[in-house]
């Protein structure tokens, strides 16, 4: 498929220049926006705008009263929120950092000459396909402090394992590790794609120069897999900042409030019926994500151009 494409495009290019630039109509039409625009506009933009209005009201689902920015004030006075902001950052940085490091390492491994490569690729990617709730339930059981497989295995070698999900200082990190377990496959895949697309000539030239594996990694893979790194960082940061499902399935923000993130605080306000407060929280989350992602992606992409 790929090769025919190249041939054909080469041929059409000469055809096109031979025929001159005859253009009766633009072949691009705004009608193509229509189906997506209707669905997206009606089911996403309209509700979002309505929600923004309701974030300025005290809204009990049955009626609402305009209260200005009180919800935002309350939200920032919410004791759980301040700590959850911090947790969100820790969680996002931890998970996306580990995904970058482990993803790159695994991708190097899985593109090298290694036995069982197909098996390894499959097994690393497979958790991506399993439902978050299923993964959460499974690991909650595995991480049970007394009866879970992890601590029982540690017991065998004489280590008394911690309460992974019940120790206040560990719960958030434990959930983050499970998130990495589930998500590293996608990062690895993106890196594999990035490494595979590096032209072999670079490696051959390096071999002629007598470069070792480390030099290859340092001077070829790392700089040339940069777009993959950018993609992994951006995707996993957005995912990490908004992450909710796994935390909810495993700890519900507990014990106490020690693994609460912004998204789970918002969800709790929603559950409690404070709909105005919860939509205000959504706006805050949106601003936080934008404030982090937008400059970061500008920065990362600019560096790429300079390269």
């Amino acid at each position, binding site marked *: 498929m790929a090769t025919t494409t190249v041939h054909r495009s080469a041929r059409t290019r000469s055809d096109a220049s031979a025929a001159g630039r005859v253009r009766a109509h633009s072949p691009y039409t705004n009608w193509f926006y229509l189906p997506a625009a209707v669905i997206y506009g009606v089911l996403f933009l309209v509700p979002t705008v309505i929600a923004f209005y309701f974030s300025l009201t005290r809204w009990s689902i049955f009626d609402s009263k305009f209260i200005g920015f009180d919800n935002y004030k309350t939200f920032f*006075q919410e004791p759980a929120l301040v700590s959850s902001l911090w947790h969100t950052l820790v969680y996002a940085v931890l998970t996306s950092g580990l995904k970058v490091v482990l993803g790159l390492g695994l991708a190097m491994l899985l593109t090298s000459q290694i036995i069982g490569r197909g098996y390894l690729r499959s097994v690393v990617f497979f958790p991506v396909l399993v439902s978050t709730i299923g993964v959460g339930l499974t690991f909650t059981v595995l991480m049970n*402090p007394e009866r879970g497989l992890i601590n029982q295995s540690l017991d065998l070698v004489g280590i008394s394992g911690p309460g992974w999900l019940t120790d*206040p200082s560990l719960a958030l990190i434990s959930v983050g590790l499970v998130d990495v377990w589930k998500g590293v496959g996608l990062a690895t895949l993106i890196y594999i794609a990035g490494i595979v697309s590096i032209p072999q000539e670079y490696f051959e030239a390096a071999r002629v120069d007598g470069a070792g594996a480390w030099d290859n990694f340092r001077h070829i893979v790392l700089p040339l897999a940069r777009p993959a790194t950018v993609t992994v960082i951006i995707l996993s940061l957005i995912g990490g900042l908004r992450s909710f499902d796994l935390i909810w399935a495993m700890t519900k*923000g507990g*014990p106490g409030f020690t693994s609460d993130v912004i998204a789970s605080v918002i969800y709790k306000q929603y559950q409690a019926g*404070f709909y105005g407060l919860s939509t205000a929280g959504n706006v805050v989350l949106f601003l936080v994500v934008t404030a982090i992602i937008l400059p970061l992606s500008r920065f990362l992409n600019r560096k790429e151009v300079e390269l």
Partner: protein
Amino acid sequence: MRTRHIAITLLATASMALTACSAGSLGSSDDSGGDGKVTISFLYDNGSETAKIGDQLVKDFTAKNPNITIKTETRPQGTDGDNLIKTRLSTGDMSDVFMYNSGSLFQALAPEKNLAPLGDTENIGNLDKNFTTTVSSNGKIYGVPWGGFMAGAILYNKDVYAKLGLQIPKTWDDFMANNAQIKAGGVDPVIQTYGETWTSQLFILGDYANVNTADPQWAEKYTKNQAKYATTPAALAGFQHLQDVHDKGYENKDFASAKLTDGLRYLATGKGAQYPILSAMVSQLIADNPGSEDKVGLFPIPGTDAAQNKLTVWSPNGVYIPSSTTGAKLEAAKKFLAFIASTDGCNSQTTASTPTGPYAVKGCTVGDKVPQAVKDMQGFIDSGQSSLALEFLSPVKGPALEQICVEVGSGIRKADAAAKLYDEDVKKQAQQLGLEGW
């Protein structure tokens, strides 16, 4: 290339056509036909005992009313369920009959707007006043009782008590003295199960009878924002008790991860001695641990005064009809509610699941084969040594109490800080309800 294009279009249209004809029901229709037959839907939570009771009620009712068919649906428990119910009510999409809490959670449904009043329904006059006040708004009754009254109290293993020669404690100091002996005897004195966070709240919620003893007007002041947990010693005591139990190491070792079923098992097997929990859990205790009905007793959460040893009581859940149910369905739904509010309804529930407290329908008895814990509870109710829980006396209840209690019971937060935090937490609820003085 052409075939691919057509294939995609076909796939899309075919799947749209498929979806148009079925959203998944395997065959049954739910329209009310012209021949007097009516089908109504009935929503309850997915607790294991709940389903047994719901199915039995439907079975016994439809046996007597062959023209009415009832389709049952389940919903999640806890706050997920609260949310689902509010969303469906506000969108006019509620099932024809549904089961839900009474008291403050019922008030949050805006009953006058969303529910059908039951004034003219048969058997409504038969209901216990203590119950009807918790399902009424502006003098109108909206619900009939599901199950019986329950207590928020301490379930204890009688064998452990007998073996160690302990007396039932009437004050908190007695209770702590017992705990010391129980621990010395190699048994976990107090069972806590934060694997299910709601179970953490009993030392606070179940202590309300003691608060009420100290100040009978407290609920009223609390609603008006004139009394606080943090500044009322009797109310703060609940948080303090939870902290004491943790500080003295009286909890079971796996308190942070154990679940309700674990807690009930520890209690039944004597691995743990005492479990502060809702008495309604007795039915699950017995279902999971056959033979435990006579081994487990109940006493109120003790306060400061041995002479004023009172039990904190929860009103039964209610069964309601949303205002979106009309016409023949409304008639059928009211008939069903009248059945639930009759002695036949009680008997039906007794058949399905062990009764866990006295029914709120006049003339209903729980029978004589009730578990020991229910007998103990009945004694307090019959002698008037009881008070309703705060959530039935005031609409103010904060959503984060369970997390706060987990923190206190795990030693993450101290009692006085926790009480302050909870006072902040309830503010949102009070403002949301538009109460005076907040």
